[in-house]
């Protein structure tokens, strides 16, 4: 595996973006937020299948937890309705709390696993929860293909 990129910072500033791979949503269980765990062939040479699948499965678990319709969501709903939803002005919803956890998890995965392999995951919430965008950077050592597009990456600070 390529170990040219040593940290995330270097990766974000590097302009040598080769391509982007998009992991689509899995709608087999309805409209709940779930991503396909199918391993894209473009990443086969960059990362082990199991690592990638674990990341996506963990993300799916987080989203399932956020969207669970159960006791906690009823309590939250009833309390919010009783206050005419003004309570959301002061309190974070459960979904927002889980999104923060997800953001932290993606950051950690990027630092530990993806950046050393020249990859970068973008939080799906920045893409409308439609796709997991995986940016594939060139291996510095190879004289491979030139970047397909000179794109300022969609990673924007909130």
């Amino acid at each position, binding site marked *: 595996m390529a170990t040219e990129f040593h940290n995330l910072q270097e990766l974000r500033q590097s302009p040598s973006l080769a391509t982007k791979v998009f992991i689509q949503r899995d709608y*087999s269980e309805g409209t709940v937020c779930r991503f396909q765990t199918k391993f894209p062939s473009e990443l086969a040479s960059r990362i082990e299948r199991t690592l990638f699948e674990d990341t996506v499965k963990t993300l799916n678990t987080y989203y399932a937890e956020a969207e669970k319709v159960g006791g906690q969501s009823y309590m939250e709903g009833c309390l919010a309705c009783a206050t005419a939803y003004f309570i959301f002005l002061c309190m974070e919803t459960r*979904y927002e709390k889980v999104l923060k956890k997800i953001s932290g998890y993606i950051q950690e995965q990027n630092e530990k696993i993806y950046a050393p392999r020249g990859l970068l995951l973008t939080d799906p919430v920045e893409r409308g929860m439609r796709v997991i965008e995986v940016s594939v950077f060139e291996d510095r050592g190879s004289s491979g293909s030139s970047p397909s*597009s000179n*794109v300022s990456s969609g990673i924007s600070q909130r």
Partner: protein
Amino acid sequence: MSAVMITRKARKWEKLPGKNTFCCDGRVMMARQKGVFYLTVFLIVGTCSLFFAFECPYLAIHLSPAIPVFAIVLFLFVMAMLLRTSFSDPGVLPRALPEEATFIEMEIEAANGNVPAGQRPPPRIRNVQINGQIVKLKYCYTCKIFRPPRASHCSICDNCVDRFDHHCPWVGNCVGKRNYRYFYLFTLSLSLLTIYIFTFGIVHVVMRSVDSGFVKTLQDTPGTYPFMLVCFFTLWSVVGLTGFHSYLISLNQTTNEDIKGSWSGKNRVQNPYSHKNIINNCCEVLCGPAYPSVLDRRGLTQDDLPVPASTATKSNPVPQTTRTTAPLIPNEHTPDDAKPSIADLAIAHAEKISPSPKEEKPPTPPKAPVIPKSPPTPTKVPPLASPETDVEASIIIAKEKAL
């Protein structure tokens, strides 16, 4: 004497495509046409004011002070729900960035294979299986995405909205995944409020007439009658609408799906989202999680904007492009759903003959010039959908009138 250029970072709402207006520095998001919304607010506030001014003093003294207190609580709840529905993001799906759009185009081309010259490429549809049923996902030419299930494009707001229900001119916004429960609670509480003040209006008139005669009552409280009239007519439509949405919720359907008949009929797919249980359906729709907005309105962009000396606050940022009039009816058919006209087919044919450049746009968010009823010119124009579009639009008009 010398001008000092002050710049500030633009917020993302200032750069968002679509036809929404934003207020309070991106915190409030509404449709462009707000006239009917102001009418709604005026009717509710005006009618309740007449009730509080003319009925409540008498009722508080002769019956109970709890009556006006409950009316005030109900009125505040109605206004809170209305404002929440009107001002929140209904569940707008952000448009695809250029890389994603290109990726999707490449997938479509790979799936279509080689289309012989002179033939239309097949329609851009993706089939997915949901709970055992096959559901077709359509491609949105404006947003450059395959719409998720239950999402639809609102041509009035020019956005794809998740779990699109309808565009409601009375609240001045689309009703979608994020604000459907507020909309439902608004109609429900407004029904209760209307019934409540209408009933107590009648009680008041009767009690006064018993005391002092009908004619004197008419003279003493002239304000009662306009508001009773408004209540009477409002009652039927609002209660009817609440009943209709209660029915939809129990079946876990949207207005859009109901109008299009997506799940009705023998040969059609059964609703794959329904839990087949009224309680479960209601719980999912009304007690489900509060979805956050995926449209980052208040984030800062990388661009700097000069601060003109005259304007200190930005309250109406979205530049008016072309449309100032839009139909009041929910017409969520995008340009890509419009019937293909001869001109469109000519464009499609010409594009296929002379290979046009692919999506080599500069990497800015795609801003398709939106002109209703004529599709934008993408590089490949597949056969656009069905002639049933116009039928659907007329059904929408009929339903709105009936309600």
